[in-house]
């Protein structure tokens, strides 16, 4: 009589695997970090003379230690910043009180004189992609107090990001038919970055509210 080969019962295998699966599901921390990206300015080489900027090109935001805003000399709210910045940077009516514009080609010539060839190449590409776009010379100047809360600071930064995203989306839609965030071609993204550069200048914080 032939012996029956004993077979391992694999019925519970699935249960064991399920148990392991659930363990890893629970311990999996798929926390995605998100946030606002910024680039800090490099430390100035030695004593560098501050660059002169014409008054019309500066959009001034001050935050005091009580989280109050002073926007271009008048009391303002966070919610209003976005619209004001969009209007300031785009300057559709060529208002002489708002920033002047510089054609990409003019900027390219200027950079070539200073010998920044990487920059020249990037600008040349931008011209090829977008045409000779007038770049706003506007700068957002942001100054806060050492006592300003981080929450307020970030809300202002968020509004500034939103304003620039709006402007870039606008240009991107006109040229490529999709929003800026959905652009995949590196050249297109870089061209838009050159056409609408994010110029945020942060001054040393004040210390009115006492040392913190």
């Amino acid at each position, binding site marked *: 009589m032939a012996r029956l080969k004993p077979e391992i019962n694999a019925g519970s295998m699935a249960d064991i695997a399920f148990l392991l*699966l659930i363990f890893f599901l629970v311990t999996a921390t798929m926390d995605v970090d*998100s*946030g*606002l990206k910024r680039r800090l300015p490099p430390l100035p080489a030695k004593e560098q003379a501050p660059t002169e900027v014409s008054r019309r090109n500066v959009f001034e935001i001050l935050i005091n230690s009580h989280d109050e805003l002073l926007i271009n000399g008048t009391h303002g709210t966070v919610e209003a910043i976005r619209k004001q910045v969009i209007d300031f940077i785009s300057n559709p009516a060529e208002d002489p009180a708002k920033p002047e514009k510089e054609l990409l080609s003019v900027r390219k010539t200027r950079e070539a004189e200073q010998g920044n060839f990487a920059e020249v190449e990037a600008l040349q590409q931008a011209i090829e992609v977008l045409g000779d776009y007038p770049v706003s010379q506007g700068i957002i100047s942001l100054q806060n107090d050492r006592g300003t809360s981080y929450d307020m600071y970030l809300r202002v930064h968020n509004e500034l990001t939103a304003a620039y995203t709006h402007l870039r989306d606008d240009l991107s839609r006109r040229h490529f038919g999709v929003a800026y965030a959905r652009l995949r071609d590196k050249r297109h993204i870089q061209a838009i970055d050159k056409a609408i550069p994010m110029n945020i200048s942060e001054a040393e914080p004040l210390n009115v509210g006492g040392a913190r």
Partner: protein
Amino acid sequence: MGRFTKKAGNAVPALNTASLPDIIFMLLFFFMVTTTFKKTDVLVQVRQPKASEAEKLEKKSLVTYIYIGTPADPALGTGQRIQINDAFADVADVAAFVESERASMPEQEKSKMITSLKIDKASHMGLVTDVKQELRKANALNINYSSKK
């Protein structure tokens, strides 16, 4: 024509579950690979601020974290502290820490290093500015203000 007649009394055949473990194993491996165990214990309380424009940080290997907030354990004081790795740190330690993190990165990625600042929303900008100044000294210029959408 008997050839095409159905077998009588056709019961529904039992579903073959032999491949079920394989499917589950595949899921298991997926989660095993994607799981990242938390590396650091957060000693300071960080309530992240909200920002509607927050973008995802894509490459985790490029990111270095610095935490700022009040200690989670009130016995350690109520002032704002900086946490680096698993310990409290001073402003003066930031540059050295960033340098050592950068040294451990592959050469071609060093310039793309991002420092993610996880800062409690009630923090004051004084300390944050000091940290930013240190980062500038260490030439770690790409930063990310960590915030929830």
